[in-house]
C-alpha cells in the first residue's frame, strides 16, 4: 500500500493504541483502578464521536458534500443496536413481558411490530447497523446526486432529512419508544453492560473501529478514487468532462461514510446507555461539522482530534463553569476559525515545521 499511514496518522494511531492497551490493562491488573470506569466510558464515547467525524470528513473534507444530516446515520446505527439491546432484556423488563419491550407494553402494543423482527439476533442487528444507514444513504444519495443537487441545497435537504426523521422518531406510533427512545439496557451477548470489563471491551472495540475507519478512509483518499473525489469537490463539471461519473463516486463515499457513521452509533449506544430521537436533531449534526472544521477539514486525523477536543471541552467546561461554559466554547470556536484557518491540526503541524510535499489543501467548493 502506498504509505497508508503517514506521519500524523502514525502518531495518532500510536497514541490511540497506547490508550487502548494501557487503560484496560491498568484497570484489570492494577490496584484501585487508576482510570475510573466512568472515564473509560467517556473516552469510548469520544472515540465514537471521532469515528463519526472521520466519516463526515470523508464526504465533506474530500468530496465537498457538506452534510448537515450525518447525525441521522449515526442515530440509525445507534437505534439498530439499541433495538437488539432492548430485545436482549427479554422478560427482565418492568412488566416482565418476554416479547415486548416495556414502552410497547404500556402503550398497549399487542404484538411486536414487524420491523423489530430479527433484532433478537446479534448478527442481524450488526448487519442492520450497516444496512439501514447504508440503504437510507443510498436512496437519498441516488436521487440527490443524480438530480445534481449540490452545495447548500444538498446541505439543507440533508438537514431536512434528519429533521424529518427526528420528528418521526419522536412519534410514539413509530414504535421506537418516542422521545424517551430506547434505554434501560442490561447486557450484550451475555456480558453485563455495567461491568467494568464490558466497558473496557467496548472501549477497545471503539478504538479498533476508529482505527479501521481511519485506515479505510485514508486508503480511499490516497487512491486514485480519492483524487477524483477531490476533483469533484473542486470542479464537479470539469470532472464530468473527463468522463468520470460524478454521481457514482459521490454515492460511493456517501454510502461508505453513512455506514461508518452507523457503526459509530452502534458502539455509542451501549456505552451511553440510551439512544433517543435527540440524536437526529439538526443541531447535533451541525456539531459534527464543527468538530471537523475545528480539527482540520480534509485531514481525517484532524477530524478525529476535533471531535475528541470539543467533546472533552464540553465535558470539562460543563463541570468547571456550569453557568458560563457556553462563553468559553463559543469563544473557542471563533478563535479557531479566525486564527487557525487549517484547524487545530494545521497549527500543530505548522509549528512542527515539517516541510513536506504539499498535501492538497481543502478549498471551498463553490456553492
Amino acid at each position, binding site marked *: 500500500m502506498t504509505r497508508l499511514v503517514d506521519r500524523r496518522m502514525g502518531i495518532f494511531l500510536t497514541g490511540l493504541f497506547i490508550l487502548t492497551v494501557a487503560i484496560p490493562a491498568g484497570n484489570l491488573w492494577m490496584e484501585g483502578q487508576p482510570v475510573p470506569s466512568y472515564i473509560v466510558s467517556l473516552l469510548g464515547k469520544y472515540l465514537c464521536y471521532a469515528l463519526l467525524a472521520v466519516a463526515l470528513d470523508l464526504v465533506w473534507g474530500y468530496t465537498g458534500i457538506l452534510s448537515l444530516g450525518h447525525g441521522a446515520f449515526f442515530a440509525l446505527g445507534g437505534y439498530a443496536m439499541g433495538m437488539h439491546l432492548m430485545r436482549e432484556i427479554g422478560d427482565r423488563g418492568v412488566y416482565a413481558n418476554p416479547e415486548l419491550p416495556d414502552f410497547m407494553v404500556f402503550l398497549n402494543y399487542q404484538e411486536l411490530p414487524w420491523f423489530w423482527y430479527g433484532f433478537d439476533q446479534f448478527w442481524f442487528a450488526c448487519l442492520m447497523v450497516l444496512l439501514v444507514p447504508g440503504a437510507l444513504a443510498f436512496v437519498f444519495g441516488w436521487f440527490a446526486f443524480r438530480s445534481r443537487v449540490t452545495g447548500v*441545497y444538498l446541505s439543507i435537504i440533508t438537514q431536512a432529512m434528519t429533521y424529518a426523521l427526528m420528528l418521526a422518531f419522536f412519534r410514539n406510533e413509530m414504535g421506537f419508544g418516542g422521545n424517551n427512545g430506547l434505554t434501560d439496557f442490561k447486557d450484550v451477548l451475555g456480558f453485563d453492560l455495567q461491568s467494568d470489563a464490558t466497558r473496557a471491551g467496548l472501549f477497545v472495540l471503539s478504538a479498533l473501529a476508529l482505527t479501521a475507519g481511519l485506515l479505510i478512509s485514508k486508503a480511499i483518499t490516497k487512491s486514485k478514487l480519492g483524487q477524483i473525489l477531490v476533483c469533484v469537490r473542486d470542479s464537479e463539471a470539469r470532472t464530468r468532462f473527463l468522463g468520470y461519473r460524478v454521481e457514482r463516486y459521490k454515492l460511493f463515499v456517501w454510502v461508505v461514510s453513512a455506514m461508518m457513521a452507523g457503526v459509530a452509533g452502534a458502539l455509542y449506544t451501549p456505552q451511553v446507555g440510551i439512544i433517543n430521537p435527540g440524536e437526529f436533531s439538526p443541531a447535533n449534526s451541525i456539531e459534527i461539522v464543527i468538530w471537523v472544521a475545528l480539527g482540520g477539514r480534509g485531514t481525517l486525523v484532524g477530524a478525529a482530534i476535533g471531535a475528541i477536543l470539543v467533546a472533552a471541552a464540553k465535558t470539562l467546561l460543563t463541570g468547571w463553569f456550569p453557568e458560563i461554559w457556553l462563553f468559553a466554547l463559543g469563544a473557542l470556536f471563533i478563535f479557531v476559525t*479566525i486564527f487557525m484557518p487549517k484547524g487545530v491540526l494545521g497549527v500543530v503541524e505548522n509549528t512542527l515545521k515539517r516541510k513536506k510535499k504539499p498535501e492538497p489543501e481543502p478549498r471551498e467548493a463553490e456553492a
Partner: protein
Amino acid sequence: MRAAPPRNPTCAPERDMTILRLCLAVLLTCLATLTAPGPAAAQSFEDLVADLPEGKFAERSAVVARLAALGDPRAVPVLEVLRDGNLHVLKSNGAVVAIREIAGDDVAYDAITGAEYGIVPRRGATKIRVNNGLRRDIRAAIGTLTLRAPDPALRLAAAEAAFSAPDPDQLDLLRAAREAENTGTVAEALDYAIAATLIAADAPEAEQVAAIEVLREMGNQDALSILTPLLQATNPVLAQAAADALAAIEANQRFWNMAQNVWFGLSLGSVLLLAAIGLAITFGVMGVINMAHGELVMIGAYTTFFVQEIIRTSFPHLFDWSLLIAAPLAFAVAGAVGVAIERGCVRFLYGRPLETLLATWGISLILQQTVRSIFGPNNREVGNPSWMSGAFEVGQMTITYNRLWILLFALAVFAVLLFVLKKTAIGLQMRAVTQNRAMAANMGIRTGWVDAMTFGLGAGIAGLAGVALSQIDNVSPNLGQSYIVDSFMVVVFGGAGNIWGTLAAAFSLGIANKFLEPYAGAVLAKILVLVFIILFIQKRPRGLFAVKGRAVEN
C-alpha cells in the same frame, strides 16, 4: 368616550348618568318584580352583597342571580368588581370592599357606598373567589342589567351574553329590549339571543322553527352549537328544520374553512418570511452561513421587551406605541450587533464561506448565554398593544389582528428590502461586493464598509422579525434556535440569493403546512412538508426561483 345617542323616550334628553341609571332602575324594577318574585324579593340589596362572601361557588352564584333579579343598578359595579376578582372582605371588620391598587398600595373602598377604608396591609383582606362558572353567571347577570344601557357597546355585550347563556326567564326582557332597539348590530345580536332563548325555552313549535331560521342566517359555529342538540329533538318537525339548517350552515362553513386555511397559511408564511428574510441577505446574498441569525431575531425580541419594560414602569400611557418605538430600536440594536459580528469575525472569513458556520455557531452560543445571563433563562413578558389584540370576523373566518399586522409588516419589510437591493446604489454595491470582492474594490467600492452594511442590514431585519415574533411566541434565550432551521429551509427552498424566492417559499410552505395540518395532524404535516422539500429540490436543484444559466456555473 362617545356618548350613545339617547334612545329611551322617557329619559331621552338626559345625558346625565345618574338619571339614566334611575330610569333604568325604574324599568328594571318593574321587570324584576314581574320575572323574579318570591323569597329573593325579601332580601335587600345590602343583605345580598353582604351574603356574597358566604359559601361555595354555587351558593355565590345563587346570590348573584338574586342580585340581578333585584334589578338594582348599583349591582352592576359591584358585580364588575367581583368578576374582576377585586372584591374582598376586610379581615378587620368584615366589610365587603373593592380593592384598588393606587400607587402601589392596596386601598379598600366600600363595595356599595364607595367610602374609603384606607390602605389594606398585605394579607389584610380575604378575596371573594370567583371561578369560571361564577364568572359566566356574573356576565349573564350584568347582561340582564345592561340590556337597555345607553352605550350600544354595553348593550351588544349584554345581548351576546344573553345569547351564550340563554335563559327562558329573560325572554320578555329580551323582546322588550329588541322593541326599543334601533342600532342595527345590537338588534341583530338581540335577534340571535331571542332565537337561542326560544330554542332553550319550551316555545311553541312555530316560534322555534322561526328561531331556527334566524340561526341559520347567523350561520356560524355558535349557531351550529345551538342547533346540533336539536337533531335529537322529539318533535320531528323541529329535528328536520334543524337538520336542514345545519346542512346549509355546514356547506357554508366548508367554503369558509378553505378560506380560513389559506389565511392561516399566509399568516404562517408571513412568520416564516420574517424569520428568513434577514437570512436571505446574510446567507442568500453574502453567502455567510449565519448560524447566529436566530440570535439576532432574539435580540430584536428582547429589545421589544426592554422597551415595553421601560414603558410599563415609566410611561404607561405609551404602551400602544411600544412596538412602533421598539421596531427602529430593534433594527438598530440587532444591526449594530450584526456590524460588530461582521467586523469582528466574519470579515476574516470571506473566501472561506463554510468556516463562517463554525464561527457564527460560536457567536450564537455566546449571544444566547449573554442574554441568559442578563435577562435570566425564563420567558419574558411582551404584551400585545390593543391594536394587536383580539380578532375580527370576515364572513365565517376569524382574523386575529396580530397576525394581520404581522403579515402586513412582513410584506412591508420585504418591499423595502427589495427596493434597497434593486434600486439603490448601496444595494448594487452590496451585490457587487458579494459576487467578486476584489473586483468590487477595484471599482472603487469600499468593500469593508459595504460588507458591514450588508451584514448589518440582514441583522437589523432579523431584529425587526424579533419585534413581530415577540407578539406570538416566547421571548426567551431559546427563541432564535426555534427559527433557525426553518429559516434556512425557506431561503434555500426559494433559491439562495433570490429574495423573491424567499417570499414564494415562505408562503408556499406556510400554506402547504396549513392545508396538511387538519388531515395529518401537526407532527405529520411538518414531516410531510420536509419530505416535500427534499423531493422538490430533486426537481429543481437550485430552489424554487433558481438563478439559471452560465452566470451561476462558475
